[in-house]
């Protein structure tokens, strides 16, 4: 197990070097769909982080008794359970947010970030690195979603977190930014920007 990254490395890697959105390009469906405003993005990332950490904990604890050829079944079962809990929580205590995110909360079940973390990290490493990995990837996902949501909400609605930033007196809202094309445009531009920063760093 010495060749596996430590807990701190796992945590850091999830945020920048292996960022789920900009480096691994995973979980694109929610990334494009729920980034019309910042609150939605934060709730989505929080729900995903909860599921990531819980699934990593369960898989890491059970990693020695999981039969390799049945592991995907165990992952899916675990993820589905925690997603259902997250969905019920939102419906019970944040009904408006639940209505806004609609089917994208149940769809966390098929989010490949989580199943890939179970496979890459939690099924090979002990509890502490697995938890650190869950939080790291979750924060990375939060960063990815929020960076897109800030641009889209600002340009599309002139608001941030629901507060008016760009007054209607001098700003015309670009409706396209809150429509699907706005998601692709923003993601493409931001990904190009982060890749450009990455290549600049490598040159130095």
């Amino acid at each position, binding site marked *: 197990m010495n060749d596996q990254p430590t807990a701190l490395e796992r945590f850091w890697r999830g945020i920048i070097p292996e960022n789920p959105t900009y480096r691994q390009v995973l979980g694109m469906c929610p990334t494009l769909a729920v980034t019309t405003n910042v609150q939605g993005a934060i709730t989505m990332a929080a729900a995903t982080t909860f599921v990531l950490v819980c699934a990593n904990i369960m898989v890491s604890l059970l990693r020695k008794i999981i039969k390799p050829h*049945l592991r995907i079944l*165990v992952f899916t*079962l675990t993820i589905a359970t925690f997603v*259902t*809990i997250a969905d*019920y929580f939102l419906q*019970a*205590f944040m009904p408006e947010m639940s209505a806004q995110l609609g089917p994208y909360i149940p769809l966390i079940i098929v989010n490949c970030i989580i199943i890939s973390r179970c496979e890459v990290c939690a099924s090979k490493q002990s509890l502490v690195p697995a938890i650190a990995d869950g939080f790291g990837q979750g924060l990375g996902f939060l960063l990815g979603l929020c960076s897109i949501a800030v641009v889209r909400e600002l340009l599309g609605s002139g608001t941030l977190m629901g507060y008016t930033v760009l007054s209607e007196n001098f700003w015309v809202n670009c409706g396209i930014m809150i429509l699907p094309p706005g998601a692709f445009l923003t993601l493409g531009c931001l990904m190009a920007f982060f890749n450009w920063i990455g290549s600049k760093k490598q040159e130095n």
Partner: protein
Amino acid sequence: MSEENSTRKKSWKDNYLVQAWLILLMAALYSAVLILVQLNWGPIIKENQRQATYSQIPILVPNTDVANVVEKTLEKDGKKVVAYQCFDAQKNPTGWVLPASGQGFADVVDLLVGLDTSASKLTGLVVINQKETPGLGNLIKEESFRKQFIGTAADQDITVVKGRDGSPEKNEIRALTGATISSQSVCDIVNNTLKTWREELK
């Protein structure tokens, strides 16, 4: 060697149910957890949905005191619906609220229709659930679209017109630009619901 292989194949450990013991155990455990979640949060979710309906009633039927609303289950041709009979603070009847659902452009649209006491005119319309196109079809939930329904007659079909025409007095609704199907769907849902249930509101 071949004998060893054949006995190996018959071992009870190879039975797929035995192989899957961990998954079966986890499924049972997770089910138990989810039952607990459902028992604890299920009533809160139900209450949230009820609250969402009740908070709209004063918008749909003016002068209604939410405390005096009576739920009535209507039945017709094997179909069931819960209508809300509305009263003001002095218990005088103010009208009815009728839930209406149907297919929209993208997914099912859930509406609440407000009617006057004799169920002859619409007094309001709100959208409870919709997944129409953001920026186009989802404008059905905006007041500027919904208020067109106020004053339309409930005993005849509401029709959709394009462009700048259309008035509630003539039972015409102006379609949303770029969302004719969503606009038409809302009218169809209202028309169908009224056809089915209007006579039952007594």
